[in-house]
């Protein structure tokens, strides 16, 4: 880039001398004969160095220095002073001039001063760029997952407004998902919204694919121009945010009448910023998406884990019971043989002695009855072994309930009531096992009513499930015992070893069903079995 120098002196000879000398040395030089003229030139063209006489009619060099700096802070300034006006030179240096030349000076002195000022200006520029890039570098080092994006965006916008002396800045993201969704990610300075003017601006950025500056004269879109006027915006700088293969939004900086126009350096600075921001916005989008996927995955993993754990628990429980059952059944089987012998002996003795002595007959009956009771326990225990071997077929549950009732010894003082749904669907169940469930529940109900009462057998259906209830008006179960009634070997009864309900639960669960119990002390108990009509079979 060729260095452009603006020389201001009201003395034409000095002006001519300087312009010629510098032009010969390869610089691009422009002369101006007054501060006013120079200021006008600075407004339209880019200059790197301003060489100005201090003492001029009208605008002095000091005044020009100050105004020019406002417009272009990185402009290198050299002042020319007359003999004996060293105080003015000091004033100029304090006002921000890089160097001064005392008249008379040689072309070489001029060149040396210009070169010096230029290198200082370069250094200052480098410093300024570093100042921008360092915070950016710091920002980019932060792990994205810990970054609060909103505040990061704000930091970047702060940086952009400071460096370009803009009055406001905003970051918009655009997501296209069946339609265009413009989102204001962050803003500093004046409020911005996602109105139609904004969308038009973002579309323009998407179209142009590079940074552009619009002022009231160059804004072609009426929407945009009216919006600028309404907000008192004189100029705006819009930079598209381009992620690899995707337009993600735009950075917009605005200026009002009080601020100097955007400079080419501003554009390149914001362009640098924009690549970083585009990466951030895109990353944020991806992180969001990833988080969404993660959450979804986590939720599904959690659900699946819970289901598996439940299934595992169920399996463990039934396996443990099956193991206990197997062991028990083995022992039970061995017990049946001696029981059979005892039974035979009792029978034999009864045929020999029973008719003679009623007391002996009574005792032999007791032996036989107890043998039956012991045998019943063995049968219950052995039922645990083959719980999961189901021979499923559609079963008329109502008929099965009535059949089970015939296998239960119902004392006279217990009244049985049935409320059966005649339209009941036939669930796919193992009839033998379900009969066992029903018999056990009915036996339980009867035993809960030693002083009589009512046993209600109810069938119903709801949502593809069959519901069977066995209700009694008996003694009820204490609340603290209620959740334990299905545990094997737990019993509140004087008789029984606590296998009946455990087996019931195991059998119901083997059918992919559920069993519930509700009870009130002194009022009675109701067991409800839910069976799916169409179970999901493995």
């Amino acid at each position, binding site marked *: 880039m060729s260095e452009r120098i603006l020389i201001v002196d009201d003395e034409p000879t000095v002006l001519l001398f300087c312009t010629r000398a510098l032009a010969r040395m390869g610089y691009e030089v422009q002369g101006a004969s007054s501060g006013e003229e120079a200021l006008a030139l600075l407004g339209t063209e880019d200059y790197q160095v301003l060489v100005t006489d201090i003492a001029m009619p009208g605008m002095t060099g000091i005044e020009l220095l100050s105004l020019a700096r406002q417009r272009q802070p990185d402009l290198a300034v050299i002042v020319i002073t007359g003999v004996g006006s060293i105080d003015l030179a000091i004033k100029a240096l304090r006002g921000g001039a890089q160097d001064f030349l005392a008249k008379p000076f040689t072309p070489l002195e001029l060149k040396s001063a210009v070169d010096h000022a230029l290198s200082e200006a370069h250094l200052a520029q480098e410093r300024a760029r570093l100042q921008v890039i360092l915070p950016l570098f710091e920002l980019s080092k932060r792990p994205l997952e810990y970054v609060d994006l909103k505040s990061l965006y704000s930091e970047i916008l702060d940086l952009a407004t400071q460096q370009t002396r803009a009055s406001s800045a905003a970051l918009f993201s655009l997501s296209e998902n069946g339609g265009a969704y413009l989102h204001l990610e962050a803003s500093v300075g004046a409020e911005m919204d996602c109105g139609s003017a904004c969308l038009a601006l973002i579309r323009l950025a998407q179209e142009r694919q590079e940074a552009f500056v619009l002022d009231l004269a160059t804004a072609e879109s009426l929407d945009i121009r009216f919006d600028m006027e309404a907000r008192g915006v004189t100029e705006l700088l819009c930079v598209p945010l381009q992620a690899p293969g995707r337009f993600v939004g735009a950075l917009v900086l605005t200026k009002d009448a009080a601020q100097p126009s955007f400079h080419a350096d501003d554009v390149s600075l914001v362009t640098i910023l924009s690549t970083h921001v585009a990466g951030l916005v895109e990353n944020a989008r991806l992180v969001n998406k990833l988080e969404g996927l993660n959450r979804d995955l986590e939720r599904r993993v959690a659900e699946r884990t819970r289901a598996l754990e439940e299934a595992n628990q169920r399996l463990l429980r039934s396996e443990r019971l099956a193991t206990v059952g197997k062991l028990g059944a083995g022992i039970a089987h061995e017990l049946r*043989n*001696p029981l*059979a*012998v005892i039974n*035979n002996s009792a*029978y*034999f003795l009864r045929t020999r002695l029973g008719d003679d002595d009623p007391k002996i007959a009574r005792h032999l009956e007791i032996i036989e009855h107890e043998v039956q009771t012991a045998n019943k326990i063995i049968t219950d225990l052995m039922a645990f072994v083959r719980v999961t*071997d189901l021979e499923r077929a559609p079963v008329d549950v109502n008929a099965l309930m009535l059949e089970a009732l015939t296998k239960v010894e119902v004392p006279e003082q217990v009244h049985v009531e049935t409320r059966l749904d005649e339209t009941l669907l036939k669930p796919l169940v193992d009839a033998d096992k379900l009969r066992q469930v029903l018999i056990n529940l009915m036996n339980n109900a009867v035993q809960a009513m030693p002083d009589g009462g009512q046993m209600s057998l109810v069938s119903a259906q709801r949502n593809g499930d069959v519901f069977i209830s066995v209700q009694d008006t008996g003694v009820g179960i204490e609340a603290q015992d209620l959740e334990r009634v299905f545990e094997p070997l737990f019993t509140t009864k004087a008789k029984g070893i606590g296998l009946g309900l455990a087996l019931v639960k195991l059998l119901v669960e083997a059918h992919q069903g559920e069993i519930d119990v509700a009870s009130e002390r002194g009022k009675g108990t109701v067991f409800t079995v839910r069976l799916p009509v169409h179970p999901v079979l493995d």
Partner: protein
Amino acid sequence: MNKLASKPAALLVVDDEEGMRTTLADILLECDFEVDVAEHGREAVDMASKKQYDVIVMDVRMPVMDGAQALRLMRERDPNIKVVMMSANIDAALDVRLRQCADRVMPKPLDMPELLRFIRQVLAQRMVAS
């Protein structure tokens, strides 16, 4: 009835447990049947080949030769032989073939009136046939 009384029915009780053999035999003797006993399947098969029994009451699980095997061998020799199988473990696991092969399968402890009813029924049918 007189004919039956003059020629008592011959029964064979097969069980590896002495208590079972003794009690069952005593009950059947009390009913005026002629009763022999065997300790396992092999012995029972031998005895059945030498003597015609009206009914054989046999345990399933025994050493040397189990009841199922003995039943098969007896049936080969005499398809019409009447056999009641006893088992302490009657459930779905019991060999289906055994159920088809035996004339009756009864769980232990035995329902004695039921067993006696069956024996008398067999004897009555045999009498009618002859």
